[in-house]
């Protein structure tokens, strides 16, 4: 795995825009992976704070693809049930599975307890719709999600 090449220069963490809020900084995540402490990594909040901005990748002297590693780890955390999986992603995907589209409230995370104060200002501007647009071809959407679940179980 490419993490072996990491020399712990911490350039990635220096540039990471959400590092200030992470429990383990990006270079520490890599170090934990080097030490094969996977469980600690899967439980880390840091995975869910990665914005996939790719700054770390642009700074890394070894082109270690942390954004992709973070995404893989998120999938693993979600499957193993080990991690602090964010309810946000589950609600988002449930909405896409059901309606084919997602609502602004979900995209902005309002249902998950945060941001209640902006619900009314958004409604007033017609930015949250009571009747959301839907995909008519429900069968296609169902099949796509069914394939996804099968693949996830197969791994």
């Amino acid at each position: 795995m490419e993490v072996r090449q990491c020399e712990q220069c911490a350039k990635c963490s220096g540039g990471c825009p959400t590092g200030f809020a992470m429990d383990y900084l990006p270079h520490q995540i890599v170090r934990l992976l080097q030490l094969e402490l996977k469980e600690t990594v899967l439980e880390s909040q840091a995975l869910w704070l990665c914005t996939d901005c790719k700054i770390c990748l642009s700074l890394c002297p070894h082109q270690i693809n942390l954004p992709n590693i973070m995404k893989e780890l998120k999938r693993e955390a979600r499957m193993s049930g080990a991690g602090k999986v964010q309810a946000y992603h589950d609600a988002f995907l449930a909405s896409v599975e059901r309606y084919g589209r997602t609502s602004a409230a979900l995209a902005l995370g309002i249902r998950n307890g945060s941001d209640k104060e902006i619900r009314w200002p958004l409604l007033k501007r017609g930015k949250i719709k009571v009747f959301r647009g839907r995909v008519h071809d429900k069968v296609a959407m169902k099949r796509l999600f069914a394939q996804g679940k099968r693949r996830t179980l197969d791994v």
Partner: protein
Amino acid sequence: MSELAYYPGCLNHTASREYDESLRLVADKLDIPLREVPDWNCCGGNSASSLDIGLAYTLPARNLVQAHTISKEVVVPCPICYENLLESKQELAHNEALAASLAEALDTEVRDVPEPLSALQIFTAETVLEKIRLYARKSLSGLKVAAYYGCRQKTESLDQLLLALGGEGLNWPYRNECCGGRISGGNDKIAKTMVGRIVDMARECGAEAIVTACPLCHANLDLRQFQLRRDQNTPLIPVFYFTQLIGLTLGIDPSALGLNKHFVSTERALTSAGIK
């Protein structure tokens, strides 16, 4: 110009409706005929890739398939949707198993899917800029605008656009700083901190307005700034979609461009710049 497929994306029908509205109006004025992709679905946003990498490709791919009867290209306003559609097209080109399972799920052939083009790319093509200069009724010369590209758009095209609109992009360091839009759902406090830093920097550099091409950046900068107002006494900086700035210089009515849908008022900036 022949008709182009247009994929609005979920946010453009809700939180960033003014992006959609202004884009359509401006496209109309500039003779770029758009047709909405029929029965489009969510591209999977930031979440599909956290469930299953296959789904992260097949959700956007269905839209490419839906668009293929309209044109060889599909215009995508949101940089996140754009990236998802693009990566999906690239994956489909060499992953036969994926293409086969997609064809099975959609019960159709999957071949020659269209090429995604970002809306910013379309509107800043030299021929379109030329047309904008030709049709312009107002100028942005009185407004100091900071072009904000966010983490996805590694171009200079917003600055080129500002020049065509009679203005000039401000020199400031945070043009590519990440706004946290992709994690702001469920992490609003963190997003507010990130937005605060960006807006403070813009203010320090003398910006009277910010322009963006991303609905997540806009929702984040506009809405979170409005929320932050409670804690600060500093003046707020209005955030525009590039399509709204084009519309204003073409003389389109500000409310038709959705300026009244913003959280941070655009009034003062536009009045003092003599645009309104």
